[in-house]
């Protein structure tokens, strides 16, 4: 009986395209991560390569654990769905009257899901070493394959967590019969993990964290925190006492949970639900007799004016909005994020131990913790709303009403925006509460509103537009959700693979920073331009969502394409053309401004340039140069145009006991002129490194002086780039604007950029 159910589940999974999609994605992900760590992208981005061996036992634990920890988001749809699909298909109404035992049923369901997850981990197991030996990787940092490293990583780091999390999610889904609640519990787990690891940053808590952290990372870190590079390269994972206890605690906890599930579960139970109203029961009989009723309906006016359509749009969006707000996943996510935000606020009071005022801009900065949650809610509920009527099987009633597609689509989108506004206002509310708590009353409500609604909302809307397109095209809301999370996490990572320009990465661009002195500064223009660029593409996506909106019962995707073509008439081609026009013109200007008007170097080019610099000019390092003894400068600052120019004179004296015949002049990237009062030849003018070499016709004797008259001004500003050090409320103008003499270091250091630094940089 057990084998029957077990193999049935396995067969079901092998028949699902989703399984192969997950497998391929995790395979590629693990190959990508290990290949990147081994330096395969060195030719387009910064060189990875330090003396750290990438696949040391310690390194494998990291490489292996990264995709495996992403896998936790799939546990609900793999482990949870083995049992939830019995409920969703309602086969449980037949199945639970059959003569098999609880233990067979539950263990078969659990182990089949567990098995599938381990299969995917096996795929990661195969992908990781493959990525390390791909052509193009740096074999100096790759050791030969060592099975024990992988097995250690699996048994020590991954398996106990897998077991505990699986048992939790299995229990949640079994009793609530709802995979979404399982998904929420995954988010809870991730948050608790994060909190526990955050705790361990405080040395006092490390012991406790090592013992209790379910991911085991704190326990491993407890022993490896101060390992040298060679220890990291050679030693196997330390089986310290705390690590063993932690793993035992976690595994036993998982076993206890499974045992409790077995004890509590009953085939005749109902789903576990919360109810806040008292249940009163009474006998119900329906009326079985009743003759002919006259059907005399009151008169109604049916109104299809545009004004009424807008009213309908608003009304329907309220209903969709209430659906979101009354659902448990949303409520839980709101509570959690509020808690985390408040905790974060209490942490940020101190700057190097000095208490500071809870200024509004600081409250807003702390609010960044909400970003992930707002986006997760957006991705989740875009899918929920778009697929809701089909999942509830009420689509046949709704789709035959005379409500046009743009209203049905629009009401859902509007509901998502209202949801985002509510979440964003939580930042303001928690900020204000915190300020009041600290006796600080300068709330700057306008500032809150401007940054939250004027600035951050644009980003959220841009992501929502993409989420809608994905969930419109893809009929499985879990696959759609997964793709959105993948894009959200993966697009910034492309920078580590060499794709640095923001115009090629959805919703990328420059950010904004607020200072009480300078406000948002002129960099905000660039931010807005990038947002206009991506917003216009997002609106193109919205038009596509309208064209492909799922209405009725199309029998194939081909039919949906035909339907989309038939919808593409009237004003929609005009909308599409308009948005595309904005997209390409703003994109064109951004490209031109970034690459043509101003020189842009990739990180790789920059690194190579630093190498060249050292190779070409290090020989001049120890040459004597005169010392500047007097500086007279006139500086003009133009606050309205954000320009500055200066002219001045250096008096320089040869304070050495040698003759000086060459002057090595460094100047910045500004437009400058230089004139010495002694005859000279300009021997070298390196415009890339802004390094000039002047040969004096007559060498400078010790004690002699020479004057340099220079002018300097910034390159012209563009609407989105400030090339000067002048800001609207002040300047950062200092002597670095003026020339200096001699070969200055600025060389590469030995600790080259490791892959993890690139990873962290991507999520800055």
């Amino acid at each position, binding site marked *: 009986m057990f084998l029957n159910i077990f193999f049935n589940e396995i067969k079901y999974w092998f028949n699902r395209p989703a399984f192969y999609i997950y497998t391929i994605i995790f395979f590629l992900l693990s190959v990508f991560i290990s290949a990147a760590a081994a330096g395969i992208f060195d030719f387009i981005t910064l060189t990875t390569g330090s003396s750290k061996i990438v696949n040391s036992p310690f390194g494998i634990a990291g490489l292996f654990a990264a995709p495996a920890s992403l896998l936790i988001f799939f546990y609900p749809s793999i482990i949870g769905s083995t049992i939830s699909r019995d409920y969703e298909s309602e086969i449980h109404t037949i199945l639970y009257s059959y003569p098999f035992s609880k233990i067979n049923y539950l263990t078969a369901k659990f182990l089949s899901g567990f098995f599938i997850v381990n299969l995917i981990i096996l795929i990661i197991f195969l992908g990781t070493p493959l990525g390390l030996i791909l052509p193009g990787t740096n074999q100096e940092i790759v050791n030969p394959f060592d099975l024990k490293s992988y097995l250690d990583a699996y048994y020590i780091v991954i398996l106990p967590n897998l077991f505990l999390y699986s048992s939790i999610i299995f229990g949640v889904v079994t009793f609530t019969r709802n995979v979404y609640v399982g998904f929420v519990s995954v988010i809870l787990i991730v948050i608790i993990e994060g909190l526990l690891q955050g705790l361990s940053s405080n040395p006092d808590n490390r012991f406790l964290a090592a013992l209790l952290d379910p991911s085991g990372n704190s326990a491993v870190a407890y022993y490896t925190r101060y390992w040298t590079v060679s220890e990291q390269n050679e030693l196997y994972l330390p089986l310290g006492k705390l690590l063993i206890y932690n793993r035992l605690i976690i595994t036993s906890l998982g076993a206890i949970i499974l045992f409790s599930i077995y004890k509590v579960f009953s085939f005749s139970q109902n789903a576990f639900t919360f109810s806040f109203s008292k249940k009163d029961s009474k006998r119900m009989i329906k009326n079985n007799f009743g003759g002919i009723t006259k059907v005399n309906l*009151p008169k*109604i006016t049916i109104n299809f004016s545009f004004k009424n359509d807008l009213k309908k749009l608003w009304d329907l969006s309220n209903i969709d909005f209430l659906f979101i707000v009354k659902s448990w996943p949303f409520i839980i996510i709101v509570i959690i994020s509020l808690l985390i935000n408040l905790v974060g606020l209490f942490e940020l009071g101190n700057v190097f131990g000095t208490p500071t005022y809870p200024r509004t801009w600081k409250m807003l900065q702390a609010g960044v913790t909400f970003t992930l949650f707002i986006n997760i809610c957006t991705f989740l509920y875009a899918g929920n709303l778009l697929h809701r009527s089909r999942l509830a099987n009420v689509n*046949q*009633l709704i789709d035959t009403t005379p409500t046009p597609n743009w209203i049905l689509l629009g009401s859902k989108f509007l509901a998502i925006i209202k949801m985002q506004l509510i979440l964003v206002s939580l930042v303001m509310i928690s900020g204000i509460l915190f300020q009041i708590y600290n006796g600080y009353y300068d709330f700057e409500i306008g500032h809150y509103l401007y940054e939250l609604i004027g600035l951050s909302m644009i980003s959220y809307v841009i992501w929502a537009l993409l989420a809608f397109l994905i969930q419109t095209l893809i009929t499985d809301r879990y696959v759609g959700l997964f793709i959105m999370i993948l894009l959200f996490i993966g697009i910034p990572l492309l920078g580590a693979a060499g794709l640095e320009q923001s115009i090629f990465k959805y919703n990328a661009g420059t950010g904004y920073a607020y200072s009480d002195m300078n406000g948002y500064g002129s960099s905000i223009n660039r931010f807005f331009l990038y947002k206009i660029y991506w917003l216009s593409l997002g609106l193109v996506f919205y038009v596509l969502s309208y064209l492909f909106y799922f209405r009725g019962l199309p029998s194939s995707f081909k039919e949906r394409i035909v339907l989309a073509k038939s919808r593409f008439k009237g004003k929609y081609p005009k909308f599409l053309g308009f948005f595309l026009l904005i997209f390409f013109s703003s994109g064109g200007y951004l490209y031109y401004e970034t690459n043509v008007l101003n020189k842009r170097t990739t990180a790789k080019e920059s690194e190579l340039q630093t190498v060249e610099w050292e190779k070409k000019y290090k020989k001049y390092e120890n040459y004597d140069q005169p010392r500047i003894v007097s500086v007279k400068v006139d500086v003009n600052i133009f606050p309205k145009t954000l320009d500055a120019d200066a002219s001045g004179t250096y008096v320089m004296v040869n304070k050495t006991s040698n003759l000086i015949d060459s002057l090595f002049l460094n100047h910045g990237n500004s437009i400058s002129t230089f004139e010495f009062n002694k005859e000279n030849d300009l021997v070298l003018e390196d415009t890339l490194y802004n390094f000039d070499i002047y040969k004096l016709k007559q060498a400078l004797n010790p004690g002699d002086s020479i004057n340099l008259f220079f002018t300097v001004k910034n390159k012209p500003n563009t609407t989105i780039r400030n090339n000067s050090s002048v800001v609207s409320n002040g300047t950062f103008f200092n002597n670095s604007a003026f020339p200096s003499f001699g070969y200055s270091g600025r060389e590469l250091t030995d600790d080259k950029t490791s892959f993890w630094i690139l990873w962290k940089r991507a999520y800055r």
Partner: protein
Amino acid sequence: MSLIIENLTKTYSNKVKALDNLSLEIGKGMFGLLGPNGAGKSTLMRTIATLQSPDTGSIKFNDINVIEDQISLRKILGYLPQSFGVYPNMSADELLNYFAKLKGISDKKERKALINKLLEITNLSDVKKKNVSGYSGGMKQRFGIAQLLLNNPELIIVDEPTAGLDPAERQRFLNVLREVGTNSTVIFSTHIVDDVKELCNDMAILNGGKILKHVKPLDSTNELKNKIWTKSVLRDDLESAENEFNILSSNYNVDNSLTIRVFSDKKPGTDFKKAEPQLDDVYFITLKEDQNNNS
């Protein structure tokens, strides 16, 4: 007020040809669409109701080209599918309100009056505050009628509505349908022959995506006058009887003998008795002829 269907074809991606060059004209009143399971009834209903598009063919209702201009038909359409779900945690009141908004009834007061009247007609007033997801089958069908009537439709399509209803519910349902059917076109698909007999002034028999017979119920039984015979046989003699006679149906009697019902122009045997032709006979004869034509 007529519905003109011409050359409708639909093949699903699993190669099943659900509609096979189907043409039909339906006028005002109650029209019964009779056919066995898998005949294509639901596909036809859904196609008229603008939920599906056919591969070829056209549908016109009055002067609305249904396939091109779906919204215009939806304004005057009332549709009750074979099975439907509802959003959880919504009462009949709230859900009808939602559907009324979707159907374009913008005025709040008018909506409220209409909904209360509909709940009264469908006998749901007592339970209007309870969640529709907790309704019994009969109550849910009544709710289905209520949402159908919201926009006072000219074209009403109901797909197998009485399957699974108890006798009281079924009767009540048919009565309501009769009342609303006087001023609109009602297309009623079912495999329960009695429904058609009681209700419809015109009908068609559908199988394998084709219209096999389009006839008024009364005329169809008149055609069969003096051609239907019954006889009692023993169970063991059934196989030979099937070879000898054109048996339409066979039913067990209390004493385990079988009464067979036979179609024949002339009396097939001395122990046969003449029987009154019923609509079931028309149904079985039509299906059998089609089966014979295709074999």
